[in-house]
């Protein structure tokens, strides 16, 4: 197959996925404001466009027109680089996420940018590099709130990354692969019953993952880095205009990626909850329906994210670190032992 053709198709795929992702980011913000508004018994954005649907556009425009400050005390190269790192890491890991069934167009995956055998590791690697965006922004700002926020945040990110990584081991044990497509295929046999969360008995791992992921994305109840009552805005206190918006965008892009990964690993990815109960609807529907299931599941996770934010109060920092190291980490290790014992007795290959 022609190399240039492959390159061209890949670039088109990347462009489409990035546009969709950035739109999704904008509308997740709107969704959050709407849902939190309803939880707090108010309307949320409702003036710009029907149901406030044009609000993200107006926000983006406003942020672009805002004054782009470069405070005198900052260390300029890193101050500018930090939001770029944060955004780049947030937009990269989506490349290995498969959105739909394995359908090829001229030999190129239609619903996945890069189908690599270590997809899960790539996501972990990109997440682990993402710490720098926050750490450097806080350090280079030369502001007390920023530095404290960045220190808190980086310590929190690395602590919960451990629990996150270990919670995935149970899933890998069952699938015997780090390829995200294989992991989904293992769960696709009997509909919802064979999803890892139910059929794989990974419900404990699922909650460990979800908790760790909330901490990884700095979301309530783990949003201490930006605890506005104590740190004004945490690591991005000194940022204005689009540089501030880039941290915002990367937070929401990370939320979307985390929801995608949770869907793939625990809720059977694009597989239908009904399994093969229904007959085939023809090739076009069969290609689109998995994408629909995938998006629906990701949407569910995003909704839960917002729901949690509207419901739970914030942790205290010592509780947060204690929870990560003393509860989640041992639970994740115990889950590995139990899962491997179970798989060893029932399902050796």
């Amino acid at each position, binding site marked *: 197959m022609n190399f240039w053709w492959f390159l061209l198709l890949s670039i088109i795929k990347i462009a489409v996925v990035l546009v969709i992702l950035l739109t999704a980011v904008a509308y997740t913000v709107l969704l959050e404001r709407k849902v939190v508004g309803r939880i707090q018994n108010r309307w949320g954005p409702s003036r710009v466009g029907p149901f406030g649907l044009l609000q993200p556009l107006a926000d983006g425009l406003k942020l672009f027109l805002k004054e782009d400050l470069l405070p005198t005390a900052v260390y300029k190269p890193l101050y500018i680089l930090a939001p770029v790192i944060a955004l780049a890491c947030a937009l990269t890991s989506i490349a290995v996420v498969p959105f739909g069934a394995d359908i090829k167009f001229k030999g190129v995956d239609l619903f996945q940018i890069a189908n690599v055998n270590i997809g899960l590791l790539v996501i972990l*690697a990109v997440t682990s*590099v993402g*710490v720098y965006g926050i750490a*450097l922004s806080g350090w280079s700002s030369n502001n007390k709130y920023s530095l404290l926020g960045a220190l808190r945040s980086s310590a929190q990110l690395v602590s919960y990354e451990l629990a996150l990584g270990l919670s995935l081991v149970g899933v890998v044990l069952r699938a015997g692969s780090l390829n995200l497509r294989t992991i989904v295929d293992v769960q696709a046999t009997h509909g919802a019953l064979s999803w890892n969360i139910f059929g794989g008995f990974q419900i404990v791992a699922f909650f460990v993952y979800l908790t760790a992921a909330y901490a990884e994305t700095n979301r309530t109840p783990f949003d201490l880095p930006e605890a506005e009552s104590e740190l004004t805005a945490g690591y991005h206190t000194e940022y204005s205009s689009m540089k501030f918006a880039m941290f915002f965008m990367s937070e929401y892009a990370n939320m979307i990626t985390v929801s995608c990964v949770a869907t793939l690993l625990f809720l059977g990815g694009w597989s239908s909850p009904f399994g093969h109960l229904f007959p085939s609807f023809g090739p076009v529907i069969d290609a689109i329906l998995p994408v629909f299931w995938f998006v629906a599941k990701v949407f569910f996770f995003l909704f839960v994210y917002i729901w949690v934010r509207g419901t739970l109060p914030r942790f205290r920092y010592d509780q947060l670190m204690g929870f990560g190291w003393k509860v989640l980490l041992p639970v994740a290790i115990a889950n590995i032992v139990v899962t491997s014992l179970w798989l060893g007795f029932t399902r050796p290959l």
Partner: protein
Amino acid sequence: MHLVLFFIFGGFCVAGALNLLLQRHPINSALSLIVVMTSLAVLYLLLGAEFLAAVQVIVYSGAIMVLFTFVIMLLNAQREERTHGSRAAYILGFPGAAALFALLTFIFISNGKSLGFAVLGPDMVSTSQLSSVLFRDLLLPFEVTSVLILIAILGAVALARHHEPHKDESKTQGKER
């Protein structure tokens, strides 16, 4: 394609290493080291070791360098003073480095065959191939790694604790809050 990418990332690697030495601010040096580590990961990938490449990024770029950055942030490390170096560095250091470089080049060129080759190419070692070696043939080194980790934990705790708990208590309490 492999060769082009090899030269690009090999170049990044060397440039990062040089920048690491020449930069005065420790945080810039740390960042250059991250560039070196990450481009090394790409080089591993080009040599067909995908698992190793990912682990290189996770462990080196994502964990060890985070510690470095932390230390720089914690200690408030400043731009280092440029000294002109001791005379010994000029007299012994540069010729020594040049001699080592020449020696290595000579060995690589003359004994290349007996040292073995690494091939840039489309062959990729899968993770299951890697782990079937690791968990059967190299089991002892693997288990010893965990002992090593345990020792490192003990060492880290021993290094970080303060030795006169009564005197220092008031100081440590006020620091973070």
